[in-house]
């Protein structure tokens, strides 16, 4: 692997950039691998990377139906944060955030992690009490967070409507300074390149169509590019995980909904924070390119179709104008939808599947992007050791039978 650096860039600049190698190879699938990961998104690729790097398991293939990063990894709003309530989630997402902080140097790929601060607004006294509880929990969990007054917020986000006459007036809020955004494609490509350099085969345009069984044990997958045998199979297919589970003969407590996002035309630097407003159902940030990135709530009906609809767009944009009435003349440029796999306690599932030989990484709901490094790290550990990583012991499928749910959405009043 040619190391990326200012020097390699200068060197290549002198020779017309003809010497850059492929960021990853384009191998044909081999007949069998020690581990096959299904799903070439951030989680699948990070899992492959950490299998190779942390556990020395390099005979690994990542199978992707289309092009890597085609799913939610390339269709999110790029927010990273660890402002979680329950110790289980806090520990997990904090680990993810810490891995993000060092990801560029670790992967030798600039993931453009921008810790510009993430503000959650409180729009009522009740919200404010919830925020205080949340901040207290974060302090106990050892995660940075601070309460903000309305004046603090008005100073940091000058165009935010902080007037008492707003329909949902701002009563204050809290901030995680280390929260922010990252460049989503770079995360996918960074993990892909680093995994490939360690020998992982990234196989695109390879759709899994079924499983091969050896008795009760899943021993391989049938794909559009032939049968591929596997010592262990990790499924990391986000919104389509339930479809894969169906092929393998088991059901998952997942419901798939579309989550839409919107970007504006690029503007000069205008919004320096990520702003989340539960009452208006909107969150906003500005990308390094200058586009305002907006997200809202899930669509109301389950679907596997990666397409948007008008009512959600109207709601998100009106909520955005409630926060920023100066933005009515700015124009929305592009919309997309990702397929979120929602679990009813809105916490992920990492661990063994009911079918021997298969391991699960799914249930990220609307928050899979921020979890990618930790999802990959712990999933790799879980597959390598055939036992859950300590950080994800609470996130196994058995929790639904035991009743040990970790309901972040209920606790924090906001979905992941």
């Amino acid at each position, binding site marked *: 692997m040619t190391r990326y650096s200012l020097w390699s860039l200068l060197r290549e600049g002198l020779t017309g*950039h003809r010497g850059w190698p492929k960021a990853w190879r384009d191998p044909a699938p081999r007949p069998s691998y020690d581990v096959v990961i299904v799903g070439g998104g951030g989680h699948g690729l990070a899992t492959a990377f950490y299998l190779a790097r942390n556990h020395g398991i390099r005979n690994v293939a990542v199978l992707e139906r289309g092009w890597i990063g085609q799913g939610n990894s390339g269709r999110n709003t790029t927010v990273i944060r660890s402002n979680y309530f329950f110790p289980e989630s806090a520990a997990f997402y904090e680990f993810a955030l810490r891995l993000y902080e060092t990801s560029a140097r670790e992967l030798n790929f600039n993931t453009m992690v921008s810790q510009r601060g993430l503000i959650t607004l409180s*729009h009522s006294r009740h919200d404010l009490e919830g925020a205080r509880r949340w901040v207290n929990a974060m302090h106990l969990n050892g995660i940075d967070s601070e309460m903000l007054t309305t004046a603090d917020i008005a100073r940091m986000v000058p165009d935010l409507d902080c007037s008492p006459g707003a329909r949902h007036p701002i009563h204050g809020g809290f901030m995680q300074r280390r929260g922010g955004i990252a460049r989503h494609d770079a995360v996918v490509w960074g993990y892909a390149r680093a995994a490939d350099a360690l020998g992982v085969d990234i196989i695109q345009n390879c759709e899994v169509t079924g499983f091969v069984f050896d008795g009760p044990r899943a021993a391989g997958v049938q794909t559009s590019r032939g049968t591929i045998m596997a010592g262990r199979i990790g499924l990391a297919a986000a919104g389509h995980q339930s479809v894969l589970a169906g092929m393998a003969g088991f059901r998952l407590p997942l419901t798939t909904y579309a989550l839409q996002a919107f970007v504006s035309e690029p503007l000069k630097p205008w919004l320096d924070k990520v702003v989340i407003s539960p009452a208006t159902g909107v969150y906003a940030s500005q990308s390094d390119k200058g586009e305002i990135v907006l997200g809202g709530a899930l669509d109301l009906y389950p679907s596997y179709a990666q397409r948007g609809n008008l009512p959600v767009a109207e709601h998100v944009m009106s909520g955005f104008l409630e926060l920023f009435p100066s933005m009515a003349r700015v124009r929305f440029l592009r919309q997309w939808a990702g397929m979120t796999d929602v679990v009813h306690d809105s916490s992920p599932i990492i661990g063994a599947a009911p079918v021997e030989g298969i391991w699960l990484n799914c249930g990220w709901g609307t928050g899979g992007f921020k979890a990618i490094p930790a999802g990959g790290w712990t999933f790799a550990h879980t597959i390598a050791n055939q036992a859950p990583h300590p950080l994800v012991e609470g996130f196994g499928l058995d929790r639904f039978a035991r009743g040990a749910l970790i*309901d972040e959405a209920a606790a924090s009043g906001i979905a992941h």
Partner: protein
Amino acid sequence: MTGAFRTTTGGRIDRARPLSFRFDGRAFTGCAGDTLASALLANGVHLAGRSFKYHRPRGILAAGAEEPNALVGIDRGPGRYAPNLRATQVEIHDGLVAESQNRTPSLRFDIAALADFAAPLIPAGFYYKTFMQPAGWWAKLYEPRIRAAAGLGRAPRGADPDRYTQRYAHCETLVVGAGPAGIAAARAAAARGDRVILCDEQAEPGGSLLAETRARIDGLCAQDWLAAALAELAAEPRVTILPRTTAFGYFAQNFVALAERVTDHLAVPDPNLPRERLWQVRAREVVLATGAIERPLVFPENDRPGIMLADSARTYLARYGVKPGCRALVLAAHDDAYGAALDLAAAGMEIALIVDPRPAADGELPRRAMAAGLPVRMSATVVGTRGRLRVHEAHVGTIGADGGVRGVDVVSCDTLLMSGGWTPSVHLHSQARGKLAFRADLQAFVPGATPQACRSVGACAGEFGLQAALGPATRVEDDPVREGGFAGALPHDRPRARAFVDFQNDVTAKDLTLALREGFRSIEHVKRYTTNGMATDQGKTSNINALAIVAAASGRAIPEVGLTSFRQPYTPVTFGAFAGTSRGELFDPVRTTPIHGWAVAQGAIFEDVGQWKRAHHFPRPGEDMHAAVRRECAAVRARAGIFDASTLGKIEVVGRDAAEFLERLYVNSWKKLEPGRCRYGILLNEAGFVIDDGVIGRLAPDRFHVTTTTGGAARVLSMMEDYVQTEWPDLQIWLTSTTEQWAVIAVQGPKAREILAPLTEGIDLSRDAFAHMAVREGRVAGVPARLFRVSFTGELGFEVNVPAGQGRAVWEAIWEQARRHDAVAYGTETMHVLRAEKGYIIVGQETDGTVVPDDLGLGWAIGKGKRDFVGKRSLSRPDIAAPGRKQLVGLLSADPGHVLDEGAQIVAMRDPPPGTPALGHVTSSYWSATLGRSIALALVADGRARHGQTLFAPMPGGAVPVAVTGPVFHDPEGRSLDG
């Protein structure tokens, strides 16, 4: 004179109506009918913008929605600044103020253009490879610089004072695009008697007809034919013609969104008009007549001001009476460029040379050009240009038989016109989930099968020419077939030169091949890595060229490489149009109770609870909130208070199986509840967690009056409907939301009975006749009422339900009586304190979706021996019964004057190290006037076993010691309930 480059006659502008406008502070004059782009060109101004990455000087490339370069900000005063508008779509009006973007300090001299010198070092994706060392510099130095350099226009400041509205419409035929094909389709549909909506993004309908110079249609010149056709359509009452209206989104079931720009083109807008309208149209059939976009050619240094699309240049001449320059070189890979050359030459422009990369061009227009004596060179191309702010020469080379380029001639010119043919605008077809088919002869994708009732006609279907657009019934003369078309990069001999593909984002042909070299094979990867097609024009002029370059470089056919997806919007749409009137109180309705006006008159302070405004407390002069709440609390306990509980959710559950239904839904037993009795109901979700509670009264064997929490009203009704409709359709029950039909007045306190007695008819209020948790029907203050004997304060209490319309009158009557007993009106804060003193929970405060009834000490409510209810099975899961669950307790801070923070965490140690899991948290915390000290409720792990223990609430100022107690602080025996 409206510009040195204005022709004396011709075009659709009105030379008699000069309009003055400013661009970057400089005054210009244009004509009515001009766009900002045509007016600037008429004044000889080509330099209109700077590119995104290299800040290269850029001119006006096109004449329509595809313009990537000439982006401007329009300033109409405070709150009315609109960035990133295409100058080709901005109609000028008198006094228009426009400014260029993305340049410092000026368009002619932009300091950031230094980036252009670094271009060899910063190709596509360079930022992924660097800025990683030394640690910390990314956050502090690199990223802020990158952000400052990025972005195009500046954000507006101040709230936009303009209005935006929305319209909903149905029609049999929606025609998108009012060019010849769209007009033909609209006429045919109108003849059938359809309701027709014909929309077009431009200021006037007509499309290519507005600039058609040769063809005669049914014996008329194109503009005369157009005027007649439009007049005919306009006379049809069932036809709606919408100019300045872009169909930008095509959703499922033939649902199409249109953005209409209503006032931007007016110098003095009518204040009664909205600035924009968002149309939501449901059509039986959609006819797409969206035309085609001319394709630029990719050759070295193809981006200088003065380099334009050939047919756009012809449009400026024919439609706006503007010559784009004095001496043009035409690079023609399509016959239409010859037509442009002919028209421009006829208007007096010198055609320096027509350069055609094709070996031969024997179409009608090339023949005419040659016959007219225009110089033509076949098998040639442009390999370079010169001119910093305006092209002044082009370097023309010959393409050899081997594809290489040899020999260079320098041709001076002030305009370079290019045409690579036409790309059908299949955006909406593709948004409708229609398939696309590649046509090699056009080097373009055309619409294929579509799952919706939608068809494409005319140029957007790859059917070019007026005859094809208008159909065989219309006679078209002089509409020669035009051939040619080129996608990809033209050959050249200059390895170091840059040939631009995406003008706005500065993506070059070399960037695309670099992406391929680095393994980004999927066109989506190429797009994301290079940012080709991601600019504000979303690839309208760049996608096909990029695709062809990628295909050629990777040895694949174009259809094999595939297209990136088309998404809404076709062109950008304002946030304002999407929000429409859904702002302020129309964004989220404000709900008020029938008694709201009374509370306002009394000077109540309100709080928002969901959409409701609730009276929080009723301060008297000089009182702050704490004083008011203490006074209200004391009065209720000593005498009485009245409280507006109208926001409680109410659902009437009626039918033969009403009791069975509630039996299956709620944890409690309902079948044996006698009519006239009430019970406190608890509702779980399937996971066994408490999601709502409320008193349910049985009025008759088949009729229940269910109350829910204020916030849960809609959710509980939805859940009930879900179960009735999907799980138990056999049950005979009907559900009706009655939240807004009943006003609810709580009368609480030892004097409650005495207050109500004089007003009540038909109900015996005596202790024996009307016990706690009973419900009676009668009259209160002369109004039919449902009277509940319930208490959320621990005092003797009644809740008077009367029809909402009479709520205020009944409230005032009760208030009159209450005053005689020195009772008070109290708000939600006092309600919260009084119920906390009694340890009564509030769902959403003491619960958070992880709490089962036993955690709250409410296990007693679960009906014994019930076979099933929602959540029952989940309650039997092992972890629900395991030790360590958080249970509701009372907390007394060691310092009785210290009121704990709600949300404070509870731990066992005074100084817990970071990472110590909390035992629980404070759910409610108040000053209790009754007890003369602070009280709090909390959920604490194994809380019931900890009574008497001291725990800690760590706060920023140090840990606060607290004693664990039971959750009932006041009157644990419940003596006060009976007054």
